[in-house]
């Protein structure tokens, strides 16, 4: 869905955006294209500039420099009221003294709609967010999740071209959050409205977004689909911020080669020079368990890349429900331990237990190399 939309022109284009608060640069030269109907997440730790970027798009806090184009129209210096967007805040910002109906109708008034039309639209929206009977209540009488859905209904009431969500789920408890995640995504797909959501929750971003914009210290670290960002992180920061990642100091060899401890392994291609200090990284679930090698009955347990296989001792095992998290020690890593997630099946099959030795393999296409200075 990423680059496929209409005639090449993005719906929202951000070019060379800077934002300075005094001497502090909150956004540094941000450029980004968002296409029509896309669901984009700005993901990053707090203070990375993601909310600043959202507020610049909305015109709530104007950028210091740079251009924002929406639907081919330069909106860089327009006040929020002259832009075309609906917004949902973390605090919901529902008007406490107005009923749910009046909250949703707030933006529909004075827009040339007749009273019955407004009424009908409000009913339609209440149905859409699944709260058809709650119209006469006040916001305080609804649960947090319900309030957030009303805020959403209010934001899309006028059919804005762009929907902005500022951490919309972080004030809710975990269960409701997961449920609402799905609902918002469904709604967005149904309406086809271009949506930008700010979040610091990687799970939220991975499950909802068509594309994720990972930000840190006011710059974009990576833009890509959830699988791209997870499988092929562009920097160590992205690798570390999204999901779990083993990080082992290493030395680069020729492209596709890295020396970890004493042995050279095969890894994904890279363009570091020989002997450059790097970080070798692999996700815990990508580590392949092989039993103790000696007893492995040839056939089903084949080691694909012998250079990347070695013996380790299971130092600690932690049961996490659907899998085991194991800390593996090896003389190759010295003090560092490797974390690996093994399926319950594998643990049973290989009879893994603490202090047992085993062979593991780091698959060459999952072993990545990053420059160390990218670390946080």
């Amino acid at each position, binding site marked *: 869905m990423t680059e496929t939309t209409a005639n090449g022109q993005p719906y929202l284009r951000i070019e*060379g955006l*800077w934002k*300075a608060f005094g001497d502090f*640069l909150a956004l*540094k*030269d941000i450029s980004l294209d968002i296409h029509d109907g896309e669901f984009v997440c700005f993901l990053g730790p707090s203070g990375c500039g993601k909310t600043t970027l959202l507020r610049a798009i*909305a*015109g*709530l806090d*104007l*950028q*210091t*420099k*740079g251009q924002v184009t929406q639907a081919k129209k330069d909106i*860089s*210096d*327009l*006040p*929020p*009221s*002259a*832009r075309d*967007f*609906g*917004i949902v*805040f973390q*605090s919901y*910002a529902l*008007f*406490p*003294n*107005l009923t749910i109906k009046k909250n949703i109708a*707030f*933006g529909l*008034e*004075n*827009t040339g709609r007749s009273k019955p039309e407004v009424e009908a639209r409000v009913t339609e929206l209440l149905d859409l967010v699944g709260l058809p009977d709650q119209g006469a209540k*006040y*916001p*305080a*009488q609804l649960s947090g999740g319900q309030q957030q859905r009303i805020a959403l209904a*209010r*934001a899309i*009431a*006028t059919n*804005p071209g762009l929907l902005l969500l500022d951490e919309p789920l972080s004030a809710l408890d975990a269960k409701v959050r997961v449920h609402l995640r799905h609902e918002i995504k469904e709604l967005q797909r149904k309406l086809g409205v271009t949506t930008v959501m700010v979040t610091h929750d990687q799970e939220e971003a991975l499950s909802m977004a068509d594309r994720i914009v990972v930000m840190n210290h006011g*710059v974009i*670290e990576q833009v890509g689909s959830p699988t791209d960002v997870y499988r092929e992180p562009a*920097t160590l920061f992205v690798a570390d911020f999204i999901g779990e990642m083993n990080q082992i100091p290493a030395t680069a060899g020729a492209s596709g080669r890295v020396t970890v401890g004493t042995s050279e392994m095969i890894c994904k291609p890279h363009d570091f020079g020989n002997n450059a200090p790097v970080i070798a990284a692999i996700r815990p679930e990508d580590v392949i368990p092989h039993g103790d090698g000696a007893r492995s009955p040839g056939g089903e347990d084949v080691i694909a890349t012998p250079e990347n296989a070695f013996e380790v001792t299971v130092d600690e095992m932690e049961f996490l429900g659907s899998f085991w998290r194991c800390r593996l020690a090896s003389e190759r890593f010295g003090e560092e331990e490797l974390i690996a997630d093994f399926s319950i099946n594998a643990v049973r099959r290989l009879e893994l237990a603490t202090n047992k030795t085993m062979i593991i393999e780091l698959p060459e296409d999952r072993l990545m190399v990053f420059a160390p200075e990218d670390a946080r």
Partner: protein
Amino acid sequence: MTDATALPDGPVIKGRLSRDDVIMRLGMVVIAIYLVATMVLPLWAMLSKSFSTFKFDLSGYEIQVSDEAGSFEGTILTPAELNAELGVLELGDLDAGSDSRMGLTQFFPDFSFRSPVMYRVRNTTDAGRFLVGSELKTGTEWIELDSNTFRRVQMRPVKSTGLGNFVSYFSTPALFNSIKNSLMIAVISTVITVTLAFWFAYALNRSCMRFKGAFRLVAMAPILVPSLLPGIALVYLFGNQGMIKELLFGASIYGPIGIVIGSVFFTFPHAFIIISTALAISDARLYEAAVSLRSTPWRTFWTVTIPGARYGLISAAFVVFNLVITDFGLPKVIGGQFNVLAVDIYKQVIGQQNFEMGAVVSVVLVVPAILAFAIDRLVQSKQVALLSARSVPYQPTTNRKADNIFLGYCVLVAVFIVGMLAVCQFAALIKFWPYDLSFSLKNYEFDRMDGGGWGSYFNSIKLALLTAVIGTCVIFFGAYLVEKSNGFKTGRAIFQMFAMLPMAIPGMVLGLAYIFFFNNPANPLNFIYGTMAILVICTVTHFYTVSHLTAVTALKQMDREFESVSASLKQPTMKLFSRVTVPVCMPAILDISIYLFVNAMTTVSAVVFLYSPKTTLASIAVLNMDDAGDIAPAAAMGMMIFYTNAAARIIHLILSKGVLTRTQAWRTR
């Protein structure tokens, strides 16, 4: 990854303003101009007045006397030479006010207006001026006068800028002694009031005694009367023919004793509210910890209770100090020969028409008032988050003995407060204390007394209503603009500063500043001088700060993003303001209006300089009737103010309830 670390050159994006931004900025500018015109400029006028000195310049004139035939052949003399010869005037006699004038004949001991001798007079410089009759003469031309006209020649003082007024203030013991007096009174009253109010608040918050509601009500009563009313009660109780004057063992109530007792009365509710709030927020877990550590109640009191309430105590102390040192009504009524700063201003201005000296005393009075205000703000800004979300409110437990002691104490305080009011009401309803104690309503025939009669009372109600309505609109809208508009940071900071200033300016100073500013014929706003409008403006400004803070506090509780949401929905901010902001803040708005109403009814200090015969006020009438010796009618009028305010409070209560059920339905789940 672009490794950009510095902003590129080129112009910074300047946002285009929406219609709402323009409206809000214009609104803010309008209210800022209002504050500048009604506060900053008048205070500036006063300050510059305090530095302008007037002095007769005896060497600025030349006089030549003719012989009896009328020919001028004698020597040309200056008054300075004549004075040096004759010693008519001392150096200090040359100090003058802006309106002073001085004749020339005193330098001629042989002067006779029938003499055929002729006189010539002229200024030695272009700046010099003198009067012949009422005609002002400037320039250095000789003017020839016969002796009968020479009698009517008067020198006018020369204006200069400098510290002269302050020098003469601090070299006049009768004046600068007031500083000591004022400070002494304020400190003593503060210590007594804060102590009394603390134990009263403690009893109400930390004991299980009965009738708490009634005591709370009684404690608030003094807010409803002018500060000079306790003075009148004290006259009846301890005056020369007082009911229980023996209790003073011969000491006079007219002086520091009276001022202190009266000050304790009228500042009590202010201290009580602040300390009570401080004591109400307490964490029961600290007390449980103290008990489990086997601390004695005495030790718990000093290690838990007092530290917890210390910000409240400090704040209360400075508020009381400020109220006492700036109060004018009470020392005017009961102060006798004991001079304090606020009354000095009045005496200088009204009594001696010495406006410059009045301005000097004002500047002197502003110093401690601003200091007290600044320290109070500092303390309040430090008082944050004493109470965390996990705190457990303290629940007092029954202790028969302690509860009875507290009840006894509260009864004593209540008797003091109610007693003062009762004495005034009693005095108002009898014929002639102490000789004829029969019931009579003649003290209510205000039209037969000085002070403006019943007209003053209705003027006061008009002023209070106008102040409440106009003041609430201006102040709340101003607070909204400051709190909720975008950008314009400097403008908002300056506005905020203007809004805080009135709190630090004593009423007397504000009133005097208004004379200097608005009574100046060159001022285009001069036309409002002497009207009801200037009284309303002055009162709104006088009580601006507390109202502004109330509004800001209420507005801060509103979600910051309401304005953003409204803008994203393309709705005008004013719609949000009227549909959401005002209804949600209605309790605060009603609080502001009753605060303004009550204060407009009771205020004396600022308006005492500004009323005209057409706009006399009830509180001023109390002052003037008391001054004229009509003490009983003064008490009667004072009690009218009390009943009016009490009624306003009750109406406010009913109104709040009604409005709350209508606009605040959302508060109940």
